[in-house]
């Protein structure tokens, strides 16, 4: 029996909607079967919490007196450079931005103690942040220098706007070389010393709606502890990746671009990340409700860790130079704490926090039950596996 989002919202309004987390759905479907579960359950909440480098926030800091045109000049927040190529007082800071004087990897491996992700966390935590700006001065914007404290509660807009989040599946990273390497997937010990993965697996939004039947442009989400929306497919969206017999891509595939009011977010769901030897990032809590419109959507939403597979990639050679997979593994194996590759037992570590994802899925469930959060109809769908939309390497054309 098919339902519509309008009908589900009506049930939420009447306090009659049945909302469960994707983890809870797995047990319900095992007990009652998918047909009965699809009839009884209205909304399934999915979630993820982990570093997502293509993230950032823009601000309108308000006009000083006399006015300054930061646009075309420079802007720093706590010494971290922000992009200033907009109008007079709009700036954007990205999660991986670093202070000009950070030693980076000159002393290897660099610590990357503070960067753009940490600035966003500090702002959301309500801390005062230093804004230092320079400008060239114009007749209408004569000021050339501005050094001031700013606080998120005083500035005009503060908006989280992330070009790529919530990857649908991700590589497992290992190191075949004979020295430790420092990657965005963490420290990888030599000769298969450890294996790091980064997905919430059976709670991860796009793994539970693998064909993007419900998650689309305009989908309202839990973002960083506040409210956000899916605003576009994320960069590198790659829906055409091969899928297993359950319909789930077996390598990184779809992505989401998301946005929301930073002022309504909370510091525990937007946390600065320091990846030794790699750089800074921002860990983000995202929760996405999946309306159970029909049996097929329910079957996908009930996929469990054992059904979700990904590939193992050597980050010493294959990743930087482009190369193949060493094998495939599922999230149940990864979460058990060890996997076996080439007869060798390897300890696993997660970059994505499953316990935080559970917390977010439950928070989202509660806010739907309390009638604080209603579902939205996508205004457009993400490019599908059949769309031909994909992810190309750079066609490098040397200048000289």
């Amino acid at each position, binding site marked *: 029996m098919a339902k519509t989002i309008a009908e589900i919202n009506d049930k939420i309004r009447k306090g009659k909607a049945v909302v469960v987390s994707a983890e809870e759905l797995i047990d319900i479907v095992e007990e009652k079967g998918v047909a009965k579960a699809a009839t009884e359950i209205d909304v399934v909440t999915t979630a993820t919490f982990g570093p997502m480098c293509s993230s950032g926030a823009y601000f309108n800091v308000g006009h000083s007196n006399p006015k300054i045109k930061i646009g075309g000049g420079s802007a720093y927040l706590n010494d971290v450079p922000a992009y200033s190529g907009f109008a007079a007082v709009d700036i954007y800071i990205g999660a991986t931005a670093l202070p000009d004087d950070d030693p980076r990897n000159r002393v290897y491996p660099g610590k990357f103690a503070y960067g753009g992700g940490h600035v966003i966390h500090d702002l959301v935590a309500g801390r005062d942040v230093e804004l230092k700006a320079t400008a060239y001065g114009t007749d209408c914007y004569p000021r050339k220098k501005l050094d001031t404290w700013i606080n998120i509660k005083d500035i005009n807009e503060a908006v989280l706007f992330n070009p790529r989040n919530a990857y649908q599946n991700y590589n497992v990273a290992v190191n075949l070389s004979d020295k430790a390497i420092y990657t965005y997937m963490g420290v990888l010990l030599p000769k298969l010393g450890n294996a790091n993965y980064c997905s919430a697996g059976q709670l991860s939004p796009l793994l539970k709606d693998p064909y993007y039947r419900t998650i689309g442009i305009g989908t309202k989400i839990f973002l960083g502890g506040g409210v956000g929306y899916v605003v576009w497919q994320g960069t590198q969206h790659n829906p055409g990746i091969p899928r297993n017999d359950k319909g789930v891509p077996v390598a990184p595939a779809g992505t989401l671009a998301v946005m929301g009011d930073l002022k309504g977010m909370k510091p525990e769901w937007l946390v600065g990340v320091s990846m030794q030897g790699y750089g800074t990032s921002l860990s983000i809590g995202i929760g996405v409700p999946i309306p159970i419109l029909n049996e097929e959507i329910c079957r996908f939403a009930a996929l469990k860790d054992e059904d979700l597979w990904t590939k193992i990639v050597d980050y010493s050679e294959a990743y930087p130079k482009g190369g193949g997979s060493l094998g495939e593994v599922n999230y149940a194996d990864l*979460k058990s704490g060890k996997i076996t590759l080439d007869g060798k037992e390897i300890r*696993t*570590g997660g970059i994505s926090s499953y316990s935080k994802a559970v917390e977010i899925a439950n928070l989202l469930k509660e806010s739907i039950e309390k009638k604080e959060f209603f579902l939205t109809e996508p205004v457009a769908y993400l490019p599908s596996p059949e769309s031909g939309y994909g992810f190309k390497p750079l066609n490098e054309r040397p200048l000289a």
Partner: protein
Amino acid sequence: MISSKVVLKFPPELVDQPITSRLVKEHNLNFNILKAQISPKEDGLLVLELEGEKVDLEGGLAFLEKAGVKVSPLSLEIGRDEERCTDCSVCTGICPTGALIVDQVTRKVNFLEEKCIACEFCLKACPYQAMRVKFYS
């Protein structure tokens, strides 16, 4: 036989004396050196796992204190900032002794201090700078 992991801090005037040798010989203790270094200020730092009879261990630790060595259990010198930890579990893959381990039910990361050998791998691996050692300060 009992064992204990301890952090020993030697003031500069003691670093050239055979205190550790006397500790193990006179108090009949087995030892395993987990970490040893002398700072530019000539303070000595030694992390040891000591094993022996209870009376010998207590006697040995009393000897150290009397000699002017600051002694503290390793479990008090290494710790986790619970507010910073997100239970991501990236540390569990590189912890060589299983001191950092995921609880398979709650999916939270437990820190079993008694298993820690102060290798500090987790300090490098933690994206949230949640792991702390106090013995350098």
